[in-house]
């Protein structure tokens, strides 16, 4: 569940924001002053922070600076009645990702929160794909290495991508055109011969007998198919 920390000293408004965000499926915690906000952000690890600037004890700018200094990289959306250019510039300089002035539209706020979370998710490293084993070959997608009987094989980047593309669609026949598009980004059919040449090289490196392949099979009149 995506967690959102709402820093807002007006209890009613905090309640309204919480209601709005929970409706969209987010888990929400609120903090009514700067010191609590900093503590809660560290303890709870929110995925996004909505921050009012005029809050007691430690003001919003200082909260923002502290969060960034402490290494928090999650998006921060400033939600404030301070709408002057200088306020916004200062907010962005201190590490805010978005700025919404009060009064705001509920749907716009939700849309901005969703956009920030989407961007943050993209920026994060995609989870590593599991290591793939077949025969005596081991493919590590994260490290981009292929070993055979414990010895590392030397594959060109395209050969590696081609192998991975076949593995990902295991059991399914893939046309040369599909492979070309997947690995080279081309869509023109004139280059399909390139695929054959790389398949030839791959078989030579990973198959016991490249003339009688057991993993990278030819599908007649279509293309290729991977089996473990």
């Amino acid at each position, binding site marked *: 569940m995506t967690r959102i920390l709402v820093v807002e*000293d*007006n*209890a*009613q*408004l905090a309640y*309204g*924001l919480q*209601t*709005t965000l929970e*409706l969209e499926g987010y888990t929400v915690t609120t903090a009514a002053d700067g010191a609590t906000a900093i503590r809660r952000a560290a303890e709870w690890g929110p995925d996004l922070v909505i921050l009012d600037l*005029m*809050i*007691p*004890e430690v*003001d919003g700018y200082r909260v923002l600076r502290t969060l960034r200094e402490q290494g928090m990289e999650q998006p921060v959306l400033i939600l404030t*009645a*301070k*709408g*002057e250019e200088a306020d916004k510039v200062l907010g962005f300089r201190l590490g805010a990702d978005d700025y919404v*002035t*009060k*009064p*705001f*539209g*509920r*749907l716009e706020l939700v849309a901005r929160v969703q956009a920030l979370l989407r961007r943050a998710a993209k920026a994060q490293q995609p989870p590593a794909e599991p290591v793939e084993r077949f025969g005596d070959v081991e493919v590590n997608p994260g490290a981009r290495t292929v070993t055979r009987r414990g010895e590392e094989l030397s594959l060109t980047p395209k050969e590696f991508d081609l192998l991975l593309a076949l593995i990902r669609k295991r059991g399914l026949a893939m046309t040369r055109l599909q492979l070309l598009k997947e690995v080279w980004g081309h869509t023109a059919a004139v280059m399909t011969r390139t695929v054959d040449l790389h398949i030839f090289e791959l078989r030579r490196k990973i198959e016991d007998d490249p003339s009688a392949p057991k993993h990278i099979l030819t599908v007649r009149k279509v293309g290729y198919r991977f089996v473990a």
Partner: protein
Amino acid sequence: VPIVLALFAATLGLAMLLGLQLRRAAELARARTAFVSGISHELRTPLTQIRLFAELLEEPRLRSDENRIRWARIIDQEARRLAYMVENVLSFARAEEHALRVTPVDTDVGAVLDEVVQAFAPLAEGRRCSIHTEVPHGITVRADPAALRHVLLNFLDNAVKYGPEGQTIRVRVEPTAAVTRIAVEDQGPGVPAAERDAIWQPYYRMARDSATGGSGIGLAIVHELVRLQGGRAVVEDGADGGARFVVELINQAT
């Protein structure tokens, strides 16, 4: 030579006067800018809530009687706050133009207080504050009822704003021989003795309140309205260490 000296002195004097005027003008301009940003912040807070809760009321996934009653109450309460703020700004503008007028008549203090406390109850409820009144019956002062209402609303609003959530605000009426004192006492941090005169000046805001939205005009209007009615407004120490804002009005002539 004496003429040259005199001219020199006169020029110097004029330059200093000009410098002083410019500084005063700059200070006033700064105060005005702070006022505009303060008031816009203050007006946006109720507006934000009115808009948000009105939008939530329209949300079909959240339709329930409980939500409807609670949110409609918030909208009503914030609309009242907004109206009162607009009234404050208008009064302040009139005071600046010396166009603020009052018409003191014999006024029943208890009746005005009942009305004000009742009107203010929803706003106090927003911060879970309770208002406790001690009003002896049959006290009549020379006052403009609308102006007195305005003064008391300002006191109550400050009490709610600067006192803690869930506090008890006490309203007391103390008649003396010549004047009647109406006191509003909160459980907040109080007003330091050094700032008790300055808070009545236009645009003045206490340093510690910089994080609280405010424009610095409420008490300036109170001061002016009370002065026009021949009374005075002061702030004292409350019994619980909070602030005790008092308006003194002249008793009805007997």
